[in-house]
């Protein structure tokens, strides 16, 4: 099981903050593709990804038990 977290505009687009997905040995890219299919999420294209609270790239591998967060353009400070 992979836990997916969505924030800010992405969360509003999905209507949920947290999603659980199946699968192992998947890339971040493949997780994104599934999310686009199921939730559309126009803001996903410009979002960054993190696995277990560290920024990662799209080709990085997501393992079962990981938390994947999608992070739309930030605006803290």
């Amino acid at each position, binding site marked *: 099981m992979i836990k997916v977290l969505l924030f*800010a*505009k992405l969360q*509003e687009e999905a209507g949920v903050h947290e999603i659980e997905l199946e699968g192992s040995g998947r890339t971040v890219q493949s997780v994104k593709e599934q999310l686009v299919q199921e939730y559309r999420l126009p803001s996903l294209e*410009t979002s960054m990804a993190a696995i277990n*609270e560290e920024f990662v790239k799209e080709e990085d591998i997501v393992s079962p038990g990981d938390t994947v*967060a999608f992070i739309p*353009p*930030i*605006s*803290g400070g």
Partner: protein
Amino acid sequence: MDERRFEITDQPISVEEVTRKVTRRECGAIATFIGTVRELTEGKRTLKLEYEAYKPMAVKMFAEIEREVKEKWPDAALAITHRIGVLEISDAAVVIAVSTPHRKAAYEANEYVMERIKQIVPIWKKEYWDDGTAWIGDQLEQVPYRKAVKKEGEADD
């Protein structure tokens, strides 16, 4: 210096408190930055703001910024508190305090921290205007993010 120097809170921030966390006998300078909610941005009137954070990751990124600061200014100490939730005009959204033996480095390190917060810390603000709302975010800021990712030791492709 034992207490939590990096915090995300839904309560008003005490500047005195954040400053106290970096006060040390060996320092002669403390630069503090307070980001407040501004009423007007490019002529548009903000009614209030709402901040959201990916809390555990935001705190990790504050610590990452501290590591970067220590590389550049080894004598610096840093504390950051960012507020989330609904903020009114003039409320403090973020307070950054940096102490150093001499003042030049305190200003420089503080400004560096603010720039990095805007680049790598997962916090978002939603603006509320008379005629609507929007999550604010600058896509351009993904460029420094790429640099942050590469720092993790991965090769460029």
